[in-house]
């Protein structure tokens, strides 16, 4: 259970870090706020499009890691 908690907290910390960084990025490099890819400004692209596959990838990674932890725990219990 402790390793599950560590896993969950790691993912949440990562999430907070990435999300927290987005507005800071704008403050550090104001030019980025006005740059465009085709007709769409970069902030719109990041928030309206890129954010979703990123969240999906984080979810898939977590499920893999959580099931690996459970399998290890099961082995440990069975061996005794």
């Amino acid at each position, binding site marked *: *259970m402790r390793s599950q908690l560590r896993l969950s907290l790691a993912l949440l910390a990562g999430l907070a870090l990435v999300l927290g960084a987005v507005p800071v990025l704008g403050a550090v490099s104001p030019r980025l706020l006005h740059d465009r890819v085709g007709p769409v400004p970069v902030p719109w692209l990041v928030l309206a499009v890129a954010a979703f596959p990123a969240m999906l990838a984080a979810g898939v990674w977590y499920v893999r890691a959580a099931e690996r932890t459970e399998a290890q*725990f099961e082995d440990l219990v069975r061996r005794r």
Partner: protein
Amino acid sequence: MIGLPAVVAVLLVVGATVVIGVYGLPVSRTTSDFLVASRSVGPGMNASAICGEYLSAASFLGVAALVLLGGVDLLWLPIGYTAGYLVLLVLVAAPLRRSGAYTLPDFAEARLGSPGLRRATAALVVVIGWLYLLPQFHGAGLTLATVTGAPQWMGTAVLLGVVVAIVTAGGMRSITFTQAFQYALKLVAITVPALVLVGVWHHRGSPDPFTGYWAVPLADPRQAHPLYATYSLVLATFVGTMGLPHVLVRFYTNPDGRAARRTAVAVIGLLGLFYLWPPVYAALGRVYAPQLATPARADTLVLQLPVLMLPGMVGRLLGALLTAGAFAAFLSTASGLTVSVAGVLSQDLVTRRRGGVREFRLGAVVAAVVPAVAAVGLGDRVSLASAVGLAFAVAASTLCPLLVLGIWWAGLTARGAAAGLVVGTTTALAAVVATYAGVSSTGWPAVLLAEPAAWTVPIAFAAAVVGSLTSPRGARGSTLPLLRLHAPESLLRADEAG
């Protein structure tokens, strides 16, 4: 106004919903069928059903409206609506399914052994359910009024009738199929018109919608403290999702904890597909429908945009498709919420006897009629996405601490949980009431009350922790109940066998 095609579209949606609902009817026999579909729904189907239920009036109409009004900062809203499932996945999905509970009050009682806490949780589920149902009924009235010119109460009444009929007939089992179908319908209904309209926009020389402070993050001069407001909104949606009763009940219908996790991941993917489109409507609305950018009219943007951009039959047909999608959104969300609220009403609050099917049906009627009447009474004072935002803020400040601490901290006691619930409920509801009453409209106080989650959630957590630590020694919990929540099913089964 779209007129006849829209009426036909609404009738088709209602008809298809009833047919699929009836198709699921013969298998709804026991209370377990009605409440959790006998726990036999696979992850793919369940994820579609969750999305079908979750994509409400706020997502279908409200997100585009708020982005049209507030610009790029409001793009955090769909991100938060989706990321809520990521938080739910890592913190509660599998353990909650393994707790063996049917409902949130079941969980509270099983974990903390307090009937009083059970009733308090039940009451909160009803409050949050009603806060969330209100904008659905309002949205139905608004939509029918916009596309046909009918009086607003009519759409609300239509929705009420259909929801009560479906829920009392089939309960959760038939709703699972209905919801999965409605996710597909909503996705098609929002995607196809968006693609056509973007094509039209391109054909007309791609006029630039991204102008002024609207397109630049944190630049809106009307918002006094944009950074705080943004983060508070993000927090409310991230941790509020797990406290929404109609979402949680879906996780109890998974066969086991592993399936519950897979369901949550699939939901994140399916929601992402949908949320690509509302900002497109907002950007096009900036160019072609600037007259709708007022708080009272923005919620109709998605419905009106095709007709405004394409006069003639094509525009009306696309508008009818969007109307169908919007009605599917109200219908699916409202029936899911009605099942959850009815389950709690019939099991915990109205009747003393547990779990009869007759009580469940009575609960369903009460669960739907109250918010429908409120929606007619409040009229246009309801803004779709903001009203749903309030439900999120209350859920984040109350049920979220209960779930997170209950699952991950052995030290949580009944007294601590009660303290957290009382403090979270009072502060969040006070902020909601103060905002609506217009107590303060400028500077920090206004921002703090309009986006309360950033301070109410930590206060509620702190109250729960302090309450637990000051409990008498005998009342402290042990790690045993937690072990059951986190152990993989295969181990538990092996234990029972051996």
